[in-house]
């Protein structure tokens, strides 16, 4: 009765919760700023006869200012994120260079005596609508660029601040239907303490960039931005993906406390960076990071990581809009190798396919793309593409800190074919006299259950295993991780997963090869002691997770980890495993505000 009453009151106050995809960890409580992403309609307005020349001059100046802005963004992006992100602005600059289009706009002003704003809007809105209506996404996605350019010029025309973040003068949470990389580049992490978008997945620009900036972020909230008003109080939980709109006084208090605890806890971890990830009884573990952009390598060092356990290379495709050539790939790989040197870097060959379109490769329509033509399967059918990548990786190995890893291996034959091509390229290098590390380690992702089951066999042919839990869970439990209807069945805590991990680790240990876990599971504090106890030698997740994982490892003994793992391996269901670990870890680390989460 009482709780019913309270719920009623909450609804009256507009209290609502939403569930999205957490992509950058942390807690934020603040008022919302809602970013308008739609292009405001401009109405036809006439100007006085004979003032057309002045109007054209006004437009030209606004275009000139816009060009300067974009060039500034480009160099800012270059400095903080590197060439790949910087290139995103080239598309905008290309549009500004479109002489025939701007000539036509100027002609409209002169012959029809209309305001520059209207002439510009009329033309570019027409183009944007036309592009939006296209079937193929590479054309459709460009509509956003056209609107962005149009909005920028319009803002300069009426003198309003053109960069969205100007005007935010207190802690705020940024809400938008979707964000352009330029929006995120402008976000001041001191003031924008959370980011929430309707669109986007774990590999969207928003996800990648907010993780790099260390701003809590939740994406994939459908039409959330339409339901939020500027000034609404929001709680953003970047650990669980939960958003609370207009929280109750009690919730507000609870999350504000969590927010400040989390912040001071993160600050307190800064002294752990230089310390080794070692248990109290001297068992050392490698704590590495997964990265997507070369410049994230700096974050790995700043957070005290021991290396890069997974350098995803797909971003090169997406940013370039096509297949990157050897030189382009080499530049990115060597950059990471040099930033990390002498710490190790594992470069994973392209894992294209799945739910993402890759410009430059013709993907057939598939009804089950995650189990379809992707990753090494594409590579083996396009050996030239694989060779080019091998060459770039080999060239980047001169500091002897680079390893190579193949994704989505499901059969020994695929591994052998991939290795054969790799050896051919190495032989070419010898013949051509190109320097490379001839002792480079070759490993595979263990993410298809067949490989985990046959790990003892695979271990004879590789130098290391990296267990990719995201796909291993999806394939073992037959649960599509993008399908919301069955999201509750996606359980990394399932005993079957733990047994496959243990089986893989045991096989690796008996062959004397290195074994790590990459994927979100490796960064989940609830799993840290368990994975170490199972004998995993390396944990690799987001750079921002490193200090916390290290802290947990440095607080426990290896004996404790082994006992814990031993106990957990006897459980029958995922909820037994999860409930036990949650209770154990919460009690064990009661003095630290570690977020143990409520959904894996």
């Amino acid at each position, binding site marked *: 009765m009482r709780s019913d009453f309270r719920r009623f009151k909450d609804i009256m106050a507009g209290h609502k919760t939403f569930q999205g995809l957490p992509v950058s960890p942390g807690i934020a409580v603040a008022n919302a700023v809602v970013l308008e992403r739609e292009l405001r309609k401009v109405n036809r307005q006439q100007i006085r006869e004979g003032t057309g020349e002045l109007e054209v001059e006004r437009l030209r100046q606004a275009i000139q200012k816009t060009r300067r802005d974009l060039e500034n963004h480009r160099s800012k992006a270059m400095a903080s994120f590197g060439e790949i992100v910087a290139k995103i602005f080239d*598309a905008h600059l*290309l*549009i500004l*260079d*479109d*002489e*025939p*289009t701007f000539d036509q706009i100027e002609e409209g002003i002169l012959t029809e005596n209309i305001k520059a704003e209207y002439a510009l809007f009329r033309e570019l809105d027409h*183009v944007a609508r*036309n*592009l939006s209506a*296209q*079937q*193929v996404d*590479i*054309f459709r996605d*460009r509509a956003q660029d*056209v609107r962005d350019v149009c909005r920028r010029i319009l803002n300069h025309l009426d003198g309003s601040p053109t960069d969205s973040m100007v005007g935010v003068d207190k802690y705020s949470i940024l809400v938008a239907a979707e964000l352009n990389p330029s929006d995120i580049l402008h976000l001041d992490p001191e003031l924008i303490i959370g980011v929430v978008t309707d669109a986007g997945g774990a590999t969207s620009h928003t996800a990648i960039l907010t993780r790099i900036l260390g701003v809590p972020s939740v994406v994939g909230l459908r039409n959330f931005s339409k339901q939020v008003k500027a000034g609404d109080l929001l709680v953003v939980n970047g650990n669980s993906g939960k958003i609370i709109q207009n929280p109750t006084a009690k919730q507000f208090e609870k999350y504000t406390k969590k927010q400040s605890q989390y912040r001071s806890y993160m600050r307190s971890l800064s002294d752990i960076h230089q310390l080794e990830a070692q248990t109290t009884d001297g068992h050392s573990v490698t704590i590495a990071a997964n990265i997507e952009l070369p410049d994230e390598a700096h974050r790995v060092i700043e957070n005290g990581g021991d290396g890069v356990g997974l350098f995803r290379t797909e971003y090169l495709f997406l940013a370039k*809009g*096509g*297949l990157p050539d050897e030189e382009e790939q080499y530049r990115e790989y060597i950059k990471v190798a040099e930033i990390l040197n002498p710490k190790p870097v594992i470069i994973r060959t392209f894992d294209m396919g799945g739910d993402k379109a890759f*410009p*430059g*490769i*013709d993907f057939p329509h598939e009804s089950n793309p995650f189990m379809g033509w992707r990753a090494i399967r594409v590579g083996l059918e396009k050996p030239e593409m694989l060779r080019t990548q091998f060459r770039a990786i080999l060239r980047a190995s001169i500091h002897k800190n680079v390893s190579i890893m193949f994704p989505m291996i499901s059969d020994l034959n695929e591994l052998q074919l991939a290795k054969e091509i790799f050896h051919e390229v190495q032989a070419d290098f010898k013949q051509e006299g190109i320097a490379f590390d001839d002792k480079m380690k070759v490993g595979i992702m263990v993410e298809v259950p067949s490989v985990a089951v046959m790990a003892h066999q695979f271990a004879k042919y590789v130098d290391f295993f990296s267990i990719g839990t995201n796909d291993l869970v999806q394939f073992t439990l037959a649960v599509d991780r993008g399908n919301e209807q069955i999201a509750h069945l996606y359980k990394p805590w399932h005993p079957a997963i733990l047994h496959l991990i243990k089986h893989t680790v045991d096989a690796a240990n008996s062959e004397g090869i290195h074994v790590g876990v990459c994927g979100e599971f490796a960064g989940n504090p609830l799993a840290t002691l368990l994975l170490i106890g199972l004998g995993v030698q390396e944990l690799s997740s987001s750079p921002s997770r490193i200090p916390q994982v290290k802290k947990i490892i440095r607080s426990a003994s290896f004996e404790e980890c082994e006992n814990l793992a031993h106990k957990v391996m006897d459980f029958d269901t995922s909820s037994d495993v999860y409930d036990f670990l949650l209770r154990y870890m919460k009690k064990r680390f009661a003095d630290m505000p570690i977020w143990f989460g409520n959904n894996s």
Partner: protein
Amino acid sequence: MISRKLTLQNKLGLHARPASRIVKLATRYKGTTVELVRGGDIVNGKSILGVMMLAAGMGTELEIRVDGPQEADLLEEIAELINNKFYEE
């Protein structure tokens, strides 16, 4: 005015980069005009937005119309780009 019909053979068709290569090439020839025709749509070959709006994918047949003092040279260069898949594959 001269013209030629050409079929796009590269996988992604006239998306941003190939489109910008045609535009850059066409822009070098001052005083010569280029039109790309697809069905009933005619766009200015010196406008990146125009070319993109054709949304011409692989296998699309385009008519290229060139008019001006160096029309033959320019048409030849455009044909070479398209027939060589924009040197990207």
